[in-house]
């Protein structure tokens, strides 16, 4: 009963916080458009590169034409946009400027406000991402192979991918409690992510060893898995397995995060930030 009530009040918090964050985000409409250029450009560059490679090989690489690459990178744009976060870049500032200390006095875990800010940003950026996707589709003519079941399965897979990536980033952000050189740590994580998440290229094009590693690491489940699902490249069994692995990772990282958070807070209250 109490669990249910606390869930209800958390829902209330999310409703109010999302509303205010949306209002705040609205103030940065101009910055949003500029940010969009960066978000669209990266997949566009990879698309251009792979299309050029396909053209050099007589039109297709491993059976993938430039239209298949277009579908892949447009899907990648959307999935990446919906799963990315920036908490690890701001956490150091958050600790040092004393905002954390203030938030610790409130009877709610600080991760909730980060989730709300993230969602508010995404809700609003969708208004520019969707037109961008339509425009890119008109220009690059992606080859979609949608299937009803995989479209349906895509939604939970996307949600899990977001949860996994967000928890991972949030745990990574906690490094800021121990070092001031978080930028280097983030850069390192981002580089590994770039390779093993499928952001650089469809993972099937990677050398077999790397493909195997990509199945072991959590990054593929944050990006490539939902992309492959929506592109209709997976069997129903593979989809179910994938989601099971996602949930397994979420549970593992959640445990890790709780542990690190507890140690970090103990440290924080001992040295006083």
């Amino acid at each position: 009963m109490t669990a249910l009530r606390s869930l209800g009040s958390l829902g209330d918090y999310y409703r109010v916080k999302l509303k205010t964050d949306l209002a705040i985000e609205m103030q940065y409409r101009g910055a949003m458009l500029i940010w969009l250029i960066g978000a669209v450009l990266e997949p566009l560059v990879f698309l251009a590169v792979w299309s050029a490679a396909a053209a050099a090989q007589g039109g297709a690489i491993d059976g993938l034409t430039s239209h298949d690459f277009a579908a892949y990178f447009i899907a990648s744009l959307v999935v990446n946009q919906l799963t990315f976060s920036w908490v690890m870049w701001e956490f150091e500032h958050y600790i040092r400027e004393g905002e954390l200390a203030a938030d610790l006095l409130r009877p709610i875990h600080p991760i909730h406000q980060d989730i709300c800010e993230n969602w508010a940003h995404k809700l609003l950026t969708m208004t520019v991402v969707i037109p961008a996707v339509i425009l890119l589709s008109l220009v690059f003519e992606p080859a979609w192979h949608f299937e009803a079941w995989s479209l349906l399965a895509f939604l939970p897979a996307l949600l899990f991918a977001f949860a996994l990536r967000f928890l991972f980033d949030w745990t990574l952000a906690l490094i800021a409690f121990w070092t001031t050189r978080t930028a280097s740590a983030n850069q390192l994580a981002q580089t590994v992510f770039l390779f093993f998440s499928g952001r650089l290229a469809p993972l099937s094009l990677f050398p077999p060893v790397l493909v195997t590693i990509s199945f072991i690491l959590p990054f593929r489940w944050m990006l490539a898995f939902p992309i492959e699902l929506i592109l209709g490249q997976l069997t129903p069994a593979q989809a179910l397995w994938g989601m099971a692995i996602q949930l397994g990772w979420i549970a593992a990282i959640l445990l890790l995060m709780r542990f690190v958070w507890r140690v970090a807070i103990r440290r924080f209250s001992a040295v006083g930030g």
Partner: protein
Amino acid sequence: MRDRIALVGTYMRLAVLNELQYRANFWGSLLEGFLGLAVALGSLAVIFGHTDNLAGWSAMELLALVGIYYIMSGYIQTFVQPSMERLLRDVHKGTLDFTLTKPEDAQLLVSVRAFAVWNLIYVLLGIAVVVFALARAGDAPSTGQIVAFVVTLLLGGVIVYSFWLMLATIAFWYIKIENILVIFQSMYEAGRWPVGIYPPVLRLMLTFLVPVAFAVTVPASALVGRVSGAALAGTLLAALGFFVAARLFWRRGVRAYAGASA
């Protein structure tokens, strides 16, 4: 002129002294340099696992281009970007007044004030990559190719500087300009690849709107001997054009700052 060179020298000496206090930045730059290089080499390896050329560029030629990209990035991050960010800060805080009351050309002063010496690591890494790529490619470039490369690289440097100065000058009218610099940075990333692979509209943008083509692709083409005399002349003209435009725009900016037009 000698006085001016001495002045630039004094600024650089101070900036180096200043940066030496932050040795940790050295390790940060080094790590980021190697990570970026890992991404570049990794993506080249994956792509050339499936093809032997990309829009006519061989793997080693593209590697040389990556090296040149690094040289140019190092130049920007060492000389251009820190000075221009400082200029923006000065406009915000009103401390540009100190610069404008100095008996020296203000454009020169704002262009040499900051100097992030650790980022020269990128230049060194870039040179190493270019040399490695050329060695692996086998036949060494001719003297003519090397001269054309050096000249186009220098012109590319002028173009990039002029472009950044123009962007920063906008701050005289519109205070919130940082976002525009973000656009440049994300578009500059596209210069890791030869602009020839991009769709025509994007290629035009990368040539004239954000002159990545002149900064990276043209010098790389010159090095591998794939640049025409006309392209060389065009680059020279572009450099002149960008430089003069930046100078005029800067002067207009300073005049607007002083309320001369009002």
